[in-house]
């Protein structure tokens, strides 16, 4: 796939503290690449360096479709994490102004703005002042402003934060459609379920360093071992001694058995001792959410092929 953006060896320090170390990844045309990590991990700093709002100490950011050293701002759509709009202006005015700053033809911008307002249930709001919009409506307008000029690269920093489920689905669909039509999308989010549903590849970051980087399938294969959840009264030591069990967690009457990477779930189930107290049992893969929480909590307990990941 065609590479649109390359970040290579990005380093950044604030007050002698390294906040980014050797960050390297690519974003391809037509893919959704997720950048994940707990608060303060360095996601927004990475994005701000890409956008030229901050300047990296080391490393390079290459826009493969741009000529010259300048950031091709008019080819990039950007929705920052901390965002808002001018309050006392009309919706259409602000959309056209932002499109104009991207050198996008005004007539086309107006047509696309109307189409998107319709699509996002904001028909008839074009002449309404921004301050009269609800928070959700405002977020939709912000999202429209980031995609109105048909960007080749779309950078979305926490696009789903504060959205209701209906709007979340709307945004999700639109982001998928944009990717399908060839836009390269770099997206940061905390909502792992959404990321899991949407992204093609992911880059997970903690303390400014890479933790995981690869396609979603690879990551799942690599990191997402099986886990077995049992409701019942069983001795923790008994559970820990079962074959193929890497570790056990107990919470609210549930025992969660994390299995080793090469465990075959069917065979493992057959070999469970009959004397175990089982009221309920389920077996599934560790989710991206659990990997994320694990990293965020700095537990370093998950294994990659049975070895600590960090």
């Amino acid at each position, binding site marked *: 796939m065609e590479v649109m953006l390359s970040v290579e060896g990005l380093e950044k320090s604030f007050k002698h503290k390294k906040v980014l170390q050797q960050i390297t990844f690519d974003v391809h045309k037509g893919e959704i690449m997720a950048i994940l990590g707990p608060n303060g991990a360095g996601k927004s700093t990475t994005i701000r360096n890409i956008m030229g709002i901050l300047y990296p100490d080391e490393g390079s950011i290459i826009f493969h479709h741009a000529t010259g050293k300048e950031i091709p701002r008019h080819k990039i759509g*950007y929705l920052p994490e901390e965002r*808002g*709009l001018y*309050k006392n202006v009309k919706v259409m*005015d602000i959309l056209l*102004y*932002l499109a104009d*700053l991207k050198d996008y033809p005004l007539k086309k911008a107006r047509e696309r703005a109307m189409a998107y307002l319709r699509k996002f249930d904001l028909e008839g709001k074009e002449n309404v002042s921004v301050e009269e919009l609800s928070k959700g409506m405002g977020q939709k307008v912000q999202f429209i*402003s980031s995609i109105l000029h048909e960007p080749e690269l779309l950078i979305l920093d926490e696009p789903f934060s504060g959205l209701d489920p209906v709007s979340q689905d709307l945004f999700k669909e639109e982001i998928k459609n944009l990717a399908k039509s060839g836009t390269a999308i770099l997206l940061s989010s905390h909502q792992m379920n959404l990321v899991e549903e949407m992204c093609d590849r992911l880059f997970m970051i903690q303390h400014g360093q890479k933790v995981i980087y690869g396609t979603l399938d690879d990551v799942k294969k690599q990191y997402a071992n099986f886990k077995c959840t049992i409701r019942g009264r069983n001795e923790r030591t008994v559970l820990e001694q079962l074959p193929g069990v890497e570790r056990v967690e107990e919470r609210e009457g549930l025992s969660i058995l994390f299995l080793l990477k090469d465990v075959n779930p069917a065979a493992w189930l057959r070999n469970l001792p009959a004397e175990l107290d089982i009221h309920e049992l389920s077996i599934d893969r560790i989710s991206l959410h659990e990997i994320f929480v694990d990293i965020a909590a700095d537990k370093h307990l998950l294994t990659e092929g049975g070895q600590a990941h960090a």
Partner: protein
Amino acid sequence: MRNTMKVAKWEVKRNLKNKSFLIGMFLTPLLMLGGYFIFQWIGSTDVPDDDAAVLLVHDELGVFEQLEAIVAEQSLSLELEQSDLLESEAEEVLTDKENMAYMAIDKRILDNATVPVYTSEDMGEWFNYDIQALAEPIQQIRLAQLSLSEEELAMVTEGVQFEEHVEGTLDEGTANEEDTEAANILENLVPGIFAGIILLSIVFTGMMIFQSASQEKKDKIAEIILSSVKPEELMQGKIIGYFVLGIIQVAVFLALVMPVAVWKIDFPIIEYLLTPKLLLLLLIAVLGYLLFAAIFVGIGATMADISTAGNFQGMIMMLPFLPVLFIGPVIEDPSGFMAQLGSYIPFSAPGVLLLRLSFLETWPWMEIGIALLILAISVWFFMKMAGRIFKTGILMYGKNATPKEIWKWMFID
């Protein structure tokens, strides 16, 4: 530059669509005009001709014509009537009259310097002042009794006049040159006032830059804008945009006030205005604007809200008003030490220079040159510093920067 102009255009458009800006723009000159007309109306109705007090003059010494001349010359609110009425009858005649008085001019003036005046019960409030003006010809009669020569008489009645000479501006004018002197004063004063209006107006709209920059932080839109334009472009766009708004304000002001001024004021304003000196005065005004715009945009980028301004920011916001301290000394002596000092301090220079050049007939070109150089270097320096503050400050949402942080952005980062 294209992006700068787009930002500038947006700021102009946004404000011109803003009701409170529009109301302010039209209301100020209209209020001024309204105030002017109201005062004029009050002035003209306060002492109407109908209310002029009728003064019956019983003149035995033949000064009536002189008195009438004084009434006409000084537009006194008196209507003189020569009367044969005797003093003894006066009281009776005045009892049922309003705003009427009786004056007997006879030899008592010569004897004991008194002029009996009888008035009706209600008199206009200016009557007592007005009749004082009639004392001069009556006094002349007394002096004539002293058998003075004409020269002596002239000397006594001439009185003493104070003639002021200011060192450095001494220009030995004679009475014949009085007209040209007045014209010279107007020649400098009119462009000076004009440039002063422009400076004030653009500095006031310049203060809106401060609000615009801090609003950018409050509305959290800075990062979205900065994904399309560079911080310098955003800052310059704001400075240019508000400059244009200031000029529009001046234009509206002049369009409304100028016709009335030309109509009501009896000298050729336009002729005095359009002189080469105006260009220099305008340059001073523009440099002044750029200096304060840089300060406002920089400080605006450090604050989330004006209401949270600390002492530090508050003090800096007061800098454009520094010339106020110099107004007194500069008017008293436009070439004095304080005037020179004010010209060399960049924050007071624009105001002080405009004030001095409006009053000085001979311009001190050397001082102007040095002051302009200091001002221009300051503009360059403050723009650069404002750029550094703006770049970082504008993205610090919901938080005010401390002086220490601002210092760091300016000189260390």
